């Protein structure tokens, strides 16, 4: 260690320079991180892209007997305020309804849960992405701007049939959707 201690004076001066440069870098690093955190908070408030705002529980073993996830209540429903609620069950190895029908330009709430294991819920080509955990209701606000079809795979390993768990979402014009909803109280696009 002889070379490091050749000159105490030089040593402390160069050490100070080194420390100063290092401190500046540390400040930059912290500023970058602070900026990211502020962006996240801003996005959360102004674009409402926050995770689910409340925790809701439900008994997964009796979903099919009563309550909002009974088979005949699944699918898309028009609410009195004009918004649409879509109720979905994800189970080994399908979503019910298998094809979800939704209107364009309408606030939509997706409510989904699982009666068995953990499933994933992803609508391809959108940012709609959540998990279905047995015992809990996943609730997320979404909106579709363009008509079209999307694939809806389960993206969490849910057993050996996982690779076969693909649903669909069909987005149709708001007007057509309203027309259909006069005939049926719960809509889907299962053929």
């Amino acid at each position: 260690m002889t070379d490091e201690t050749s000159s105490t004076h030089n040593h402390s001066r160069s050490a100070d320079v080194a420390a100063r440069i290092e401190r500046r870098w540390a400040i930059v690093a912290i500023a970058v991180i602070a900026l990211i955190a502020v962006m996240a908070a801003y996005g959360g408030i102004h674009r409402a892209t926050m995770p689910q705002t409340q925790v809701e529980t439900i008994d997964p073993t009796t979903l099919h007997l009563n309550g909002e996830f009974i088979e005949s209540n699944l699918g898309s429903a028009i609410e009195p305020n004009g918004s649409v609620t879509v109720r979905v069950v994800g189970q080994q190895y399908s979503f019910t309804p298998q094809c979800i029908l939704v209107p364009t330009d309408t606030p939509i709430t997706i409510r989904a849960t699982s009666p068995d294991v953990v499933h994933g819920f992803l609508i391809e080509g959108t940012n709609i992405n959540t998990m279905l955990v047995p015992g809990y209701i996943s609730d997320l606000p979404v909106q579709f701007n363009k008509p079209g079809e999307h694939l809806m795979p389960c993206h969490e390993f849910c057993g050996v049939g996982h690779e076969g768990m693909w649903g669909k979402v069909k987005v149709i014009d708001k007007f057509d959707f309203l027309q259909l909803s006069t005939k049926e109280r719960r809509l889907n696009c299962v053929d």
Partner: protein
Amino acid sequence: MLTNKRLILAHFWLAFSVFGLAILLGAWQMLIRSPLHAWISNPEWYYRSLTAHGTVMGYVFPTLVAMGFGYAISETSLNQPLIGRRWAWAGFWLVLIGAVTAMVPVSLGLASVLYTFYPPMIGNPFYYIGVVLVVVGSWIWVALMSINLAAWKRANPDKPVPLAMFANVAGSYLWAWTAVGAALELLLQIIPAAIGLTSTIDAGLSRVFFSWTLHAIVYFWLIPAYIAYYTIVPRAIGGKVYSDAMARIAFILFLVVSMPIGMHHTFADPQVGAGFKFIHSAFTALVAIPTLLTVFTICASVEIAGRLRGGKGPFGWIAALPWDNPIMLAVTFSFIMLGFGGAGGLINMSYQLDATIHNTQWITGHFHLIFGGAIVIMYFAIAYDLWPHLTGRQLTNLRLMRTQLWLWFIGMIVTTFPWHWVGILGMPRRMAYYDYTNAALEPTALSVSISVVGAFILVISAILFFVVLLEGQRAPRENAGPYRFSMAVHPPVTLPAVLNGHALWVTLMVGLTITNYGFPVYELVTRSGMSVPAIYVGGER
């Protein structure tokens, strides 16, 4: 002073052997789910392989590397023979027995639940018991690291703890605490259901416990690589560490903030409140700081090496670096992969961007790039650097070592970049096969095929790695001299006590765990009626 060479070699050989087996499974998985292969007739084989690959690569391989490297650091940096040699062997055998115990039911198809367990799916109890044994074995190592450091401190009351040992012990404490989450999940929830004491399980609580482990485990994998950045690389390329204090701060930050952030894995889960998700998200942002500090310190240290070797001007030092030195190559590749992987990580941790890629193939691409790429390539570098001291024989085939590292780097880029891309396209993870003929999935077919090529490049690189080590076994005996760690440009003259011990940082780590996990766990535990039926897999046929 390396006195327990056999102990350390045993850890490394077992680590790399299981790695060699698991990488073959990985390449096979890449192939059979790609458009280059027909659909596998029994998808369960895919998930079985996936469970084995993940368990070995996630729990067994890095744990053994950290343990073996940790014993080497303790002996060489403290210059004292390892205290508790028998216990260390006991820990090794526990890991080995645990790994075998876990892999038997997995290979029989009785526990195809993937390495992330996914309750309420429940597999054969021996799978979980095996994983617990691996963890218990590694906890012996944690205790030994602590005991060895304490003994050295008693003998050297006024000396700063060597950086390598300081970081090594920080890593061991991090592991001890982060493993508690999965241990609680296994011991309180999964194993009782697996052996039939209970038939229900709280899926939401289990996921929160697992998140406690799942994120910080990444930093446990990472710490040996970071120790190599700071204490091996500058010495190996003829430079010095830019700053000893900043290095300590980086490891301290890992210890404190890598733990209370795991819930960013549960952003999309319905059982945790949004407020705590935000808290975890913000703390996750903090964990980027030690990496940013490390990037600066190591680049500066490398620059010092370039200038000491006569490099001039703003970029001349880069040309002057010892590019024929495998360690130089390894650290360069590691940094490039860390850069891309870290950028991807910032996307995962942010609330808004996570929704685009959450649980898609992007995630698998991300952690393969970070762990398989940036970290494992440094494991290779550690082995190359340490081997002559362990075997007493030189590794002379530098060309082959460079080829191996180049192939690993190229293979990792070719594998993971397309992998990220198909994730952005929305391709879901962990499926045994995909219908690429469908118009919506057809755009992923080419990228997935390119990934397969990358996977096989990685297999070739792994084979070369073994060739290098085996060639070394046949080289003539030669004394490699004492094992040294890098010196700092300005070795610490005085060191604040906080930078020389772990007590404060462990306190903060536990404190932040309580603030960030305490209430969510309390709320989940006291939520009544949340136990759901266990779904047994691989049982009755």
